[in-house]
């Protein structure tokens, strides 16, 4: 297996992690609905205890997503994080505040009071998701940076990747298409969060309000996402000439990618159908709690497809609009052949990891939780 194979394999893995991460954002989506669905103190506690047993998965996936990106496409790590400094830093702050909030919220002596920790959860739910989605939007719309690997032997100014916009990443939030993706992810996460509440919590009021939220957020999600999607398919994309590595603008590049890689196109279609089916269950089947699974699988498939068309078929996945030739592709930004190979061996344990996560998840979610669980002395509560 050659270098190109490993580069594509790692783009697949990173995309898969990204796709799973977006599904697991149901935790953040749920947080953002804390006061919308939870009308009383106890109801909010129930919501927190429901998603509180899952936040670690989202968090760990985020960390692993970062680590995998670092190891496989270090030039992205270097360029994006070191350049778009502010959005990434704010995302980090949101997540740090989230991590402590579950544990500290109801603890005596938590100094700030439970409302503050709930505010942190809301902050993470709103700002974290919006910024994350907006940052991913730049994968389609481009950013302003220059990469010059030869700077490394300029002792006075050795920095390889240099951001060209003084806002250091915040400028992405002034691009409508980026924002549309940001809001798409935000509303999608809220849909998923509501569906998770439906599946995990036994409480008629919460169930009813969650179903209403599925409907409302699904409408917003569809409007934002379809606008983004159609706009993107119709827009010029960042294409690469395989012989020279030269980056150029190609009409309807992403539409072409779907057509030229039909499997990914089909996966996208299946993803959307499955997601809509899951949403449909949430809205129209008051007896079924299975919506989250269809919507979850659909989300993973759809996001995976979107990320795959960014990296495959001679496309620049992290384009620079300042200097097209600085754009990052899976060829020019990856780790060495040797490292990708070693890492690929390690990646063989991923199915094993997924298996025990699945098993543990099933064990913990066998039974829906209700108000009585909050009084249980057997297990600690958030």
């Amino acid at each position: 297996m050659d270098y190109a194979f490993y580069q594509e394999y790692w783009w697949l893995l990173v995309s898969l992690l990204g796709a799973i991460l977006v599904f697991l954002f149901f935790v953040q989506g749920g947080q953002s609905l804390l006061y919308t669905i939870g009308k009383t103190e106890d109801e909010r506690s129930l919501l927190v205890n429901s998603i509180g047993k899952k936040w670690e998965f989202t968090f760990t996936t985020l960390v692993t997503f970062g680590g995998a990106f670092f190891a496989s496409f270090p030039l992205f790590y270097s360029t994006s994080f070191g350049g778009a400094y502010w959005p990434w830093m704010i995302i980090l702050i949101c997540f740090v505040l989230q991590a402590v909030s579950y544990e500290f919220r109801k603890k005596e002596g938590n100094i700030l009071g439970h409302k503050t920790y709930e505010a942190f959860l809301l902050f993470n739910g709103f700002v974290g998701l919006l910024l994350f989605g907006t940052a991913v939007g730049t994968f389609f719309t481009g950013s302003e940076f220059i990469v010059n690997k030869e700077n490394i032997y300029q002792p006075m100014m050795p920095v390889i990747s240099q951001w060209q916009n003084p806002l250091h990443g915040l400028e992405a939030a002034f691009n409508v298409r980026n924002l549309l993706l940001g809001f798409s992810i935000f509303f999608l996460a809220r849909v998923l969060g509501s569906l998770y509440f439906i599946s995990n919590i036994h409480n008629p009021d919460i169930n009813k309000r969650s179903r209403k939220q599925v409907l409302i957020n699904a409408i917003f999600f569809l409007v934002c996402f379809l606008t983004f999607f159609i706009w993107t398919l119709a827009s010029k994309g960042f294409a690469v000439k395989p012989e020279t590595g030269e980056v150029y603008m190609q009409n309807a590049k992403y539409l072409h990618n779907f057509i030229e890689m039909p499997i990914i196109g089909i996966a996208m279609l299946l993803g959307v159908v499955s997601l809509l089916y899951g949403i449909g269950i949430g809205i129209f089947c008051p007896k079924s709690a299975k919506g989250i699974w269809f919507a979850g699988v659909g989300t993973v498939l759809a996001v995976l497809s979107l990320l795959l068309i960014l990296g495959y078929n001679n496309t620049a996945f992290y384009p620079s609009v300042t200097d097209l030739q600085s754009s990052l592709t899976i060829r020019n930004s990856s780790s060495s052949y040797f490292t990708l190979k070693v890492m690929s061996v390690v990646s063989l344990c991923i199915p094993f990891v997924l298996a025990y996560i699945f098993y543990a998840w099933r064990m913990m979610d066998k039974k829906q939780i209700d108000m009585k669980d909050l009084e249980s002395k057997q297990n600690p509560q958030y």
Partner: protein
Amino acid sequence: METLDLSVVDWSRAQFAMTAMDHWIFVPLTLSLGFIMALMETMYYRTGKTEWKIMTKFWMRLFGINFAVGVAGGLILEFQFGTNWSNYSWLVGDIFGAPLAIEGIMAFFLESTFFVIMFFGWNKVSKGFHLAATWLTWFGATLSSLWILVANAWMQYPTGTTFNSDTVRSEMTDFWAVLFSPMAMNKFFHTVTSSWIVGAAFVIGVSAWYLMKNRNIEFAHKSIKIAAGFGLLGIILALYSGDGSAYQVAQKQPMKLAAMEGLYQGNNGEGLVAVGILNPAKKEYNDSTNPFLMKITLPKLLSFLAYRDFNAYVPGVKDLLDGGYLETKPDGQTVKPVTTNEKIVFGQMAQNALKGYKIAKKTHNDSLAAVNKAIFAATSPYYGYGYVKDKKQLIPNIPLTFYSFRFMVVFGGFFLLYFIFILYIKRRIENMKWLQIVAIWAIPLAYLTSFSGWIVAEVGRQPWAIQDLLPTFAAVSDVPVGSIQATFTIFAVMFIVLFVAIVSIMVKEIRKGPEHIQ
């Protein structure tokens, strides 16, 4: 020509140091308390006695409070390599990124998945499965520390890699050399076993407080017994691996060793400074001022610890910078080492050769490319010295390294005696109020000792982000200093508030005690 703002380097370092220190407040307790409570749960599993279950659950609660904050700090650290050390990320992402990714895949999911079962699964899964989850949580945490310490050790001793002149970056060539480098193994064992001391001191301290308040007596005695045994094992292993670490430092990072000892002018049969006060009047490494106001040394011991030979020559700061001494290799041969001035010249040659190579490649001048490639291959081990303007930049902060090292060793010794004594007096601690007070104070002391070890390791290796390859001032991102100051301030406020909150929550939880646990 545009130049890099050096205050960017300082603020980036400050931010990273602060985040790492904050993270380290929580990690040692996770590594150690995880083991202690898994041991207690094993007792519960084997005897079925409720007292063991309550004990497990009580310490688990404190573990959980600590865990969340530790996880959070780790996230910022990981991403800071990108946000603030972007050049580093690209240049060595190939080697450094790999352990980080493996850590995520292998260890973090293990830790977080089984943490949830351990914490919330008491009546949801079988007793055996729950016990397995507790052990796996601890195992996952320890495994994650292995990978991150492998990454850190590689920065101190970059083995298993070569600098590729075509891709202009350092690339991994031998995974096993990176994983099993002696530096990595020592670092892992030393860091993990010394962390056990923190957890042991924590459990003993909290239990001693109960004894002082005359409550939960049996609970306290049992906890103390387990913790003291575990702590003693930890300190013995930490002393052993600490000696190995110092030996590695002597071989791989002689400047760090010189800083640890405040040694400016080396000697054969050099003694180890047991007690010393550095002379603040010492301004230059090569002036004639005595570096010490006073010192008591143990004769010849430094030579022995560093080279396993009582008469070996240990070079000081001046020797390392100016040369003029003979270095003894492990096989007993003496060689004249490359001087710092020469290293700087080689580093500049390497950078010029790399530049020449790239230009020759572009103009298809193969013979010139070959010459430059050959020069580069010969000089690339000193690549990082090409960024050094003044050789004084190569001296780490000596007072900080020197005193931190003393602190670590002295209190390491204290903890050895402490755990032995606690095990020796057994239940008599109940009537020894002074010892109960000592036990409570031993908690912060254990943390400080652990911190001081990290200060020696990290301050002592400055200015290198990667030894001999990349100094911090060539590793940073080009971010405006104002932005870094702003994030530094936000982090500082956040860390302080969360630290106060966690201490306050812990104290409340301890005051409530194990009584309310079922």
